Structures are given as C-alpha cells and as structure tokens.
C-alpha cells in the first residue's frame, strides 16, 4: 500500500480517527465496539488513534471518550454548528479533518450511514460500509445480498473510510486514565437543512435493530390480534417484536416491523421465530443472530435448518406456556 512504504513528503504516521456516536445517555456504547474494530486493525498495523466529538454542550461526552484506553487524544468541537449533527455541516468539516488519517471509522448506525458517504464523496473516496470483519490492514469483509454472501474487498485509497456493523465486534473495556482533550475548530454554519424535531418511537420496547432479544411472527400468527401473544412474550423478555414479510403482506402488522432483506437487518443475542417458515428473504435479515429459536407446527419448515433450538408445536399452546414459565 502506498502509505506504508511512502517515504516522500506525503508520508503520514498510520493513524485512525473514530467519530464518536452519541445517544440520549451521552457517550454511546457503540464507540467501545468501534474501538474493538480498531483493536483488530492494530493486529496488522501500528496506529495512533484519535476520537472526535462533535455537538453542542458535549464536553461531558468528550470526558467519557477520554477514558477509552489506547487512544492518543480526544478532539472536541463543541459549538452551535454541531447541534443535531446535520450532515450538510458535518461532512465538509469531517472531510477536512479526515485527510490526515489513514482510517476513519463510524458505526453503521443511521447516524454513520447518513454521514460517511457524504464525507467520502467530498474526499473523492469510495468508502466500505457495514464491515463485519477485518482481514488485514487493507482487506475488509462486508455482507452483500443482505447477508446471503460475504464479500472481501481490498483498497489502496489514501484514507480508508469504514462504517462498522457494531454487532460484529466485541466492545473493549473503558479505562480510568483520561487521554488529553484537544479543542478543535467546529463546522461552519450552513443554511441548507434545518432541524425541526425528533421523537422517540412511541413504545416502551427496544428498537428492533438494537434489541438484545427479538420475537418475530410469521403467517402462522393467522391475524393481527394474535400478535398480542408475541407482545406479551416480548414484555417478559424485554424484547422487540418483528415480523416476516408474509405477515406484513397479509396485513397483520405494519411494514416497519419487517425483518428481512427488504426490511430491517437484525443480529440480536436471541431471536425467537414464531409461526414463521423461514423464507430466504427473511433469513437474510436475521441469520447473524447469536441464538435462534424456532417454534412451528410444521416439522419441515426451513426455519428449523438454521435454528439452534427447534420446537415443533402449535404456537397457540407453546407461546402461552413460555409466557407463563418465564
């Protein structure tokens, strides 16, 4: 790769920049997983690692970020122009910052997915999004066809821009000795986009794509009312509720609950598929789940081929029993 053996004026010490993700609690747990991905990169290349925090009134986030072990410094841009983190302002600012780094990493969250390609286009770089494995300093794996296959991609671009599927990397532990926090220039104001409002989903349940447990129903649920059974089970487990495309197409539930190639991609610790045959397009959206349970009265349903635990039973008997015994 050019930058590894380049001794000319363009030489830069290999380095990585992580764009810190924020959530309602402040410093998101996603960042420790991004650092897990950096730890994997460090098995192939020695790296100086900086974290950058952008926002308004975000100095507390920077303080949490400084406790991440193994970093050189935290860069902090705390300003009005960072509020709501709109990409029209952030992208040119981050593109300028990113040129000095060998790698830039963001989470493959809606925040990272929204921002990174805009930054990349401004830098004339083709990013690699949603990586699930790091094979070397310049080879990365990412799912294609919703996980039906994994592609290995190599790149020799001057800066490698990556978004990381956080469920694929282990989080590192936060440390105790803070790294220095350096204040940097914030983005300049822009007038192309304006924040109106943001509302959390009106639900006590976790969001499908980040839930630890997901309970999904298929056509076997027979109607929308019967999904109440799954909600009761989900309440016991602190789970999100999903559905197959067949259940959505049959009008049982709303489209935003769809798990699959044309719906949401989930990778929870535990996935419970109820009355769901396991069509290709559904499996593509949940095959990365750690433990899969299938409950279906048809012993030949394809879902049993990928389930860790299969229960051949009538769901209208098995699910109430589960609710009672949990």
């Amino acid at each position: 790769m050019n930058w590894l053996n380049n001794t000319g004026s363009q030489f830069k010490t290999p380095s990585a920049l992580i764009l810190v993700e924020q959530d309602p609690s402040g410093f998101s747990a996603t960042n420790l997983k991004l650092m897990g991905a950096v730890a994997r990169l460090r098995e192939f290349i020695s790296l100086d690692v900086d974290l950058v925090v952008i926002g308004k009134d975000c100095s507390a986030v920077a303080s949490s970020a400084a406790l991440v072990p193994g970093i050189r410094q935290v860069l902090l841009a705390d300003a009005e122009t960072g509020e709501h983190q709109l990409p029209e302002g952030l992208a040119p600012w981050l593109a300028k910052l990113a040129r000095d780094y060998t790698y830039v990493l963001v989470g493959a969250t809606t925040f990272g997915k929204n921002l990174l390609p805009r930054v990349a286009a401004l830098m004339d770089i083709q990013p690699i999004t949603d990586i699930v494995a790091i094979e070397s300093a310049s080879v990365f794996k990412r799912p294609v066809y919703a996980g039906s296959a994994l592609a290995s991609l190599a790149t020799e671009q001057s800066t490698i821009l990556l978004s990381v599927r956080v469920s694929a990397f282990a989080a590192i532990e936060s440390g105790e000795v803070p790294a220095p926090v350096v204040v940097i220039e914030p983005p300049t104001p822009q007038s192309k986009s304006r924040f109106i409002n943001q509302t959390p989903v009106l639900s006590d349940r976790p969001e499908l794509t980040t839930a630890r447990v997901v309970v999904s129903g298929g056509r076997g649920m027979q109607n929308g009312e019967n999904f109440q059974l799954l909600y009761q089970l989900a309440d016991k487990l602190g789970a999100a509720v999903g559905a197959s495309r067949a259940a959505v197409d049959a009008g049982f539930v709303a489209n935003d609950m769809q798990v699959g190639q044309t719906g949401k991609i989930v990778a929870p610790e535990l996935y419970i598929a109820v009355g769901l045959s396991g069509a290709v397009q559904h499996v593509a959206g949940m095959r990365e789940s750690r433990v899969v349970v299938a409950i279906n009265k048809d012993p030949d349903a394809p879902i049993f081929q990928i389930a860790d635990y299969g229960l051949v039973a009538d769901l209208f008997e098995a699910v109430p029993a589960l609710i009672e015994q949990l």
Partner: protein
Amino acid sequence: MAYVIECKTHKNTKNCLKFDHKECVLKILVAVKRVVDPSVRVTPLPDGSGMDISNAKMTLNPFCEIAVEEAVRLKEQGVASEIVVVSVGSSAVQEQLRSALALGADRAVHISTDSLLEPLAIAKVLRVVVQQEHPQLTLLGKQSIDGDHNQTGQMLAALCDYPQGTFASRLECKGDEVWVTRELDGGLQTLALTLPAVITTDLRLNQPRFPTMPNIMKARQKPLAVIPLVDLGLATQPRLQTLSVEFPKLRKQGTRVQGVTELIEKLRQEAKVL
C-alpha cells in the same frame, strides 16, 4: 440558480418555488436500479468471483420502487409536474425503466455501460444527469438489495452540494422547502431541507401500487433516451477490488427440544441468553 422553473407568472425566478402558486410545481428525478428479485435465492459462484445471478429473475429494487411511487403521488397531488427516471447499466436496465414508466413516470434516461460501477461512480454519473435535468427533488431508494451499500444518495447530495434527507418515511413540500421525516435507529427525526434536495426512501414511506395493464402498454410509448456512459467523460474506474465472494459461515446444526420447559432450560443453561 441554474434550475429551470415551469411557471407562467414568475418566469425564471426562484419565487416560483412557492407552492401556493398553482403553476409552480416540482420536477422530480428518480434514480432506479435493476436487481435480483428478493424472492430468489442467490449463491456465490464456485470460484468466489461474484454471485451467480446469470438466470435469476430481475426486478426494480424495492426501495427504488418506493421512490418512484412517491414521485407519482406528488404528481397526483399537483406538487410535481414531471417525473424523469434514470438508471445506469446495460441495455437490460431498460426493462426496469419501463416498469417505472408504467408506475407513472413521464420519461426515462438510460446511461448505458456494461461495466459495474461503484456507488461513488454512480453518484458522479447522476450528478451529470442532475446538471442536465435540474430537478428540484431527486429521489433514490436508501439502498439496493444486492450491494446493500447505502451510499449513492448521500454521495449525490454531497457532489451537488444539496441537502439530504435519508431513510425518509414521510415527505411534505412546504414553500421552497421539503420537510422530511427520517427513520433513525431510535426514533423519528424531521428536517426542513431547502430545495433542490436529495431524498432517499425507506420502507414506510408508501406501499407501491401494481401497474395496470393499460399503463404498462402506455409505458412502451413513453420517451426513453439512451446516453452512452463514455460520452459523459467521467472517471468511473473501481476503487475497490473484490477478492472473493463466499458463503457466510454456516450456522451449526441445531437441536430439537421436546417442550417449552426444555427450551427454557436450554436457553438458560446451555445458550445462557436468559
């Protein structure tokens, strides 16, 4: 401002983008992609060079279909005046352009090439089309269900220096702005974007219609312009090298449990997920 405005009263002034004025309506560009039908099971080629899609049934990418549907609804509401659809690829993509025309788009542009372009290169091609067509609104699906990159719309917005509304589940045109509700991991966000803007569509935006037979027939007569990619004079060489495409690790063969009690015990003792 470079864009052409179709208003009888305010000729060539930006004032025309005020939508309370009946003649002032949007031109919409929708970029669409031809992909393998989501119901088809595709597998990697034995030599790992790519996916085996040689005989697979092809279709309009589902997210692109939602983008076309939204454009058609805006036209039906009188907000849009013209819908242009564009696709980049071999002559086969004309089939998907005709599908979009059958859904209600007015005319199509086919940028023809037999090369497979990466998202950045596609965005560069689309920028040229935006420069030629001057749409106030450009709609794309949030991602294609083959590459799953989720990049092109954001990149196009960057290259045009337009605002972006990604993962849209609601659109509303208000004056010279479009209000977009976006699906985030943890809720919904509403932004006001100054036109011209780029929007990428998510699942909940709408439920696309089925084209009627008369509309399919009519679509055959609608204009479809073919522009060879080489005529655009762009550098579209790939930046990434695909080393292999392979099956993901197979899930290990699971076990059958006899009842709910055994299931709970296994989940607690063996899998340790409860």
